[in-house]
């Protein structure tokens, strides 16, 4: 049986025009064997809806234009409302060091800034995925 690919949804958060980074990551993840869906610009509600529809393992959003706290909070809130506990959520972009901390506090599983390397992103996604899979198995065992 074929090994299940990690499925990732990538999106620009809000109206940010800069997409060079997220497109690069999209290709890097595909080259690594992950299944990637890139939806361009979207608001948190739409991102979560598509994540559910596509049953993704990881959501990655990109924000280089300052909207990360507000829209990041919205994203995590909506994910919680829709019980997306088994989906990892990561964010990349241009953030101050304080905001990096805040984003982790808000609930992002990882935060990437300018200069992030492929191995760090892939490593992080793998770790988050394995952890979520383990948690899911634990939950299933309870039944």
């Amino acid at each position, binding site marked *: 049986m074929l090994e299940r690919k990690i499925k990732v949804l990538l999106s620009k958060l809000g109206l940010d025009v800069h997409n060079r980074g997220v497109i*690069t990551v999209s290709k890097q993840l595909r080259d690594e064997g992950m299944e990637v869906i890139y939806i361009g610009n979207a608001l948190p509600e739409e991102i979560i809806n598509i994540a559910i529809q596509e049953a993704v393992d990881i959501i990655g959003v990109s924000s280089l234009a300052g909207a990360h706290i507000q829209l990041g909070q919205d994203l995590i809130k909506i994910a919680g409302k829709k019980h997306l506990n088994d989906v990892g959520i990561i964010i990349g972009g241009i953030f101050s060091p304080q905001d990096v901390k805040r984003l982790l506090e808000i609930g992002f599983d990882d935060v990437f800034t300018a200069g992030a390397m492929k191995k760090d992103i892939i490593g992080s996604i793998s770790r988050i995925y394995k952890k979520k899979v383990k948690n899911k198995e634990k939950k299933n065992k309870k039944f």
Partner: protein
Amino acid sequence: MQSIKKFTKDLIRLVESGKKRIPLYDKKALQKIEQGFRKWKAEKVSDYDKDNWRITPHNIIGSEIERDLLYTPLDNRNFDYLLDSGNSGQEPFTRGIHPNMYRGRQFTMRPLTGFGGPEDTNKRMKFMLDNGATGLNILFDLPTIQMYDSDDPLARGQVGMSGVAIDSVEDMTLLFKDIPIEDITISIVTHYPSNTAILFPMFLAMAKKRGISWDRLRGSVQNDVTLEEVVRSSPEYIPPRDCFRIQCDNIEFIRKNVPLWNFITLNGYNLREFGASGITEMAIAITNGMETIENLISRGHEVDWIAGRLSFFWSAASDFFDEVARIRAARRLWYKIIKEKYNSDNLKSTWMRCHVQTSGISLTREEPLNNIIRAAFHALSVIFGGAQSLHVDSYDEAYSVPTEEAALLSLRTQQIIQNEIGVTEVVDPLGGSYYIESLTNDIESRIIDEIDGLEKAGGYISSIENGLIQKKIAEHFYREQEMIENKEIKLVGQNVFNSEKDTPPINVFEYPVNTEEKQRKRIGDLKNRRDKKKADKALRNLEQACVQKINIFPFSISCAEADCTVGEIFKVFKKSYGLWSPPIIY
């Protein structure tokens, strides 16, 4: 008989080959030099250097052009001083567009500003002017750039971030309060033809209200299809052909009604930052320029009617001499195109006037103070290249919009160049360097080759429609990331010479709070105050003009004067032109 489309490369080659060249270097001298050079290479140059005579410097958004160990007259055998170089202010303008260059007119120090609401940016603009900036350069927030109002659900959390929020003429009025717009040149960074047709009318309406006649206004807009259709991620695009037509319509209106205004700033910078070499950047901008000129000629205008105010916007990255040479190459090439392809009679039309911004993507997040050094080198190369106007990116580029302190330092970088180190006292100081002249030639021919490729592929607009450009860019920036990851591209403090210690924190700009709230309230009040009938009528007339595919600019001015908002006007464009989905390359 079918008319054969003449390609630019062939046309120029034809004209150039008809010119009688008088090589600078004497044949006998070259013979002797060549003998001596061979001997020197055999006897003095190590085997390693012989084997690695040509190397390729690697840097972010670099040209990947090979360089020799040493350049000599042998690399410029056919150099004809008057044909290839000329004096400054003389054809072919390689050395500069004016005889006295910076002695006559210093480069404009034009720092980019924009954040929060109009009052916030107004304050920062005044700060920069008080500290010696000689021009203004305004950047809008993403909702404004993408043409949504501050109260649109799509704008949530993004109002006033990374640019200033402008929703109406009222905001434009606040933005320029107490700023002498008739005395300073103002770059209003309306990237797209669409938002140029929305925001510049608001600026003009504001000027009218202040009693300033449009023929006194000096400055520029971007107005470039490249930015609207290629270099941006957006939820909604109008079709490229409509966008290009609006670009040319804007030019026509502005040329007629705001005669001192630069109606297009061919891009350039953003394209290259997105993921293109300096060669591709120039090839695309120049091809766009040519298609624009041809469009306006087809409307019955003369080349000199448009070319005089057409300007360019380049980026300056880290390969120092490459950056110098390419501005010189572009100047010479543009001269040849306007003179030899379009048969201009007016030398001013052949000037490649440009604003340059130092490269943002060449700066790092790690050890941000290193960026001060990088940006200073970038800036210096621009001045050796002979640009008209400069913006220096700030060291906190990878963190946020610049703090006041960082923005000031960028301005000081320019002022030090202008006042302390003597580089502006002599025109084109690197002219005549064997390296620079050889590299200038090399770059010019590469640009022409890429233009040729674009033309043979059906032209620039077609290449946008079918995704050729986007594909090329994506390949470039993906490869560039690989080069960074495997250290072919070295970034001090980031992937080489990484410090063991954590980077000490820098102050990062904090956006003013409540901009979104303030703007929402302002829009609400505006809509209550205004004459609803007048606004609706203006929007309906605009829609008719869009559908008839006529020049919408005057109709947009009426909308601005009727207090319509940015979002309301864009909705009309979307409705009338329909939406376009860019081909999916990614």
